[in-house]
């Protein structure tokens, strides 16, 4: 909550109670509101200045009082003043706004990740533990939460006004935003980018819970399969393991531990493997071919849903060794069906 506590809280509370102001329910809100009040002040002062000038001159120099106008050419000094002062104020606004922007869009390293898929016309949240929610989002209090978002069709925009955050979910690539909830409660979730007929129905609720309640909630609403486990199944059923088996003879590179590493591509450039890279590597494999390999990987564009892709990404992200990949590959190669219920022990990928 930072900033000058007593007066600040009084002001915000008062505004909020008269329902002219949204709740400050996230760590970033006070910072956004501070800039807002500065800008409101600028507007009031600027408008008042113009209004006062007009009023005073209108009264003093109305025709009845001042029948003959005095011609004035202009004044470089005055004009320079009202060029430089607004410019200076605007530049302050720019710097302030830019700092805030990077604060809102740069997640801290320890943030927990939740995937959001937007589609006409609903929001689907996928927790790493496999909990799915539609048009709702449960988050713990006081923990940084990063949202990795993608849209399955058109532009949507994920907005929680009481958190002062918003980011577009766009088709074709991941975007991220983060927040840290500071007040238990339920808050509006809106889709703010016009996305077709039911745009105004694409709303939901964000529930902030104490960490204990959140843990309970997680346990109650688990679907039994974590995202990574789903991913593992997909990895086998799409035949990825036929190339990415991690053996020396494999046609594709080993994917164990690849997440977060720097890959060298055939053109010699280096690239950091993150969620976006993994997604792109599956859909557009030839766009960045890893050094030492031929561009033989087929594209899975059109064969995987965004949910499936998230499962795969989450699986590869958490893949530490190729042991299980090879296991599943053996079983599928020998004609047996791939194991449907993976053994216990993979739940350490869940990140409550």
């Amino acid at each position, binding site marked *: 909550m930072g900033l000058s506590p007593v007066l600040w809280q009084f002001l915000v509370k008062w505004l909020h109670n008269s329902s002219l102001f949204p709740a400050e329910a996230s760590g970033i809100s006070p910072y956004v509101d501070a800039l807002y009040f500065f800008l409101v002040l600028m507007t009031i002062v600027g408008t008042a200045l113009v209004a006062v000038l007009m009023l005073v001159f209108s009264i003093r120099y109305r025709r009845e009082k001042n029948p003959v106008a005095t011609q004035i050419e202009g004044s470089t000094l005055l004009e320079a003043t009202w060029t430089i002062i607004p410019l200076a104020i605007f530049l302050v606004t720019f710097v302030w706004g830019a700092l805030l922007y990077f604060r809102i869009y740069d997640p801290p390293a320890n943030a927990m990740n939740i995937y959001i898929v937007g589609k006409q016309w609903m929001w689907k949240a996928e927790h790493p533990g496999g909990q799915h929610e539609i048009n709702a989002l449960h988050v713990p209090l006081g923990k940084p939460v990063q949202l990795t978002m993608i849209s399955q069709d058109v532009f949507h925009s994920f907005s929680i006004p009481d958190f002062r955050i918003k980011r577009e979910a766009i088709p074709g*690539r*991941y975007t991220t935003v983060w927040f840290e909830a500071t007040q238990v409660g339920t808050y509006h979730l809106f889709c703010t980018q016009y996305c077709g007929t039911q745009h105004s129905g694409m709303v939901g609720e964000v529930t902030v819970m104490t960490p204990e309640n959140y843990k309970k909630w997680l346990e109650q609403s688990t679907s039994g399969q974590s995202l990574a486990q789903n991913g593992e199944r997909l990895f086998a059923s799409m035949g990825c393991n036929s190339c990415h088996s991690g053996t020396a003879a494999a046609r594709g590179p080993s994917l164990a531990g690849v997440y977060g590493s720097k890959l060298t591509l055939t053109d010699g450039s280096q*690239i950091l493997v993150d969620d*976006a*890279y993994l997604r*792109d590597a599956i859909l557009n494999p030839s*766009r*960045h071919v890893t050094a030492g390999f031929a561009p033989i990987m087929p594209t899975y564009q059109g064969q995987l849903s965004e949910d499936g892709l998230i499962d795969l990404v989450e699986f590869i992200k958490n893949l530490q060794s190729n042991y299980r990949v090879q296991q599943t590959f053996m079983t599928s190669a020998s004609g047996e069906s791939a194991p449907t219920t993976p053994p216990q022990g993979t739940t350490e990928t869940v990140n409550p």
Partner: protein
Amino acid sequence: MAHAGIHTDANDPLNVTNPEHAQHHIVTPLQYTFVYLTLLVCTGITAGAAYVDLGWANPVIALAIACFKAVIVILFFMHVAYQSRLIKMTIGAGFFIFLVLVTMTMTDYISRAWGLW
């Protein structure tokens, strides 16, 4: 009152209206022929250069020749070499705004952090 004079001479101090005026100039067929031949030769060179592997220089050469060709068409076929400054600035403005479109949009694409560049 006398009818307003006609001030078409660029050097006429009375001509406050249109200082951008230029004298009309007729380009001769001989000049056109030179330009024409140059254009043909350039076309030949640019097509030929495409068959030689010069690495990164290929597109640069192709575009440089294209620009050269465009410039001489503009200057001679379109008479801009003999036109007023106004016309020259007009053309400049057009290419300038096109460059704004390209470079300013590129600031987005080049610095996007998602690996396409």
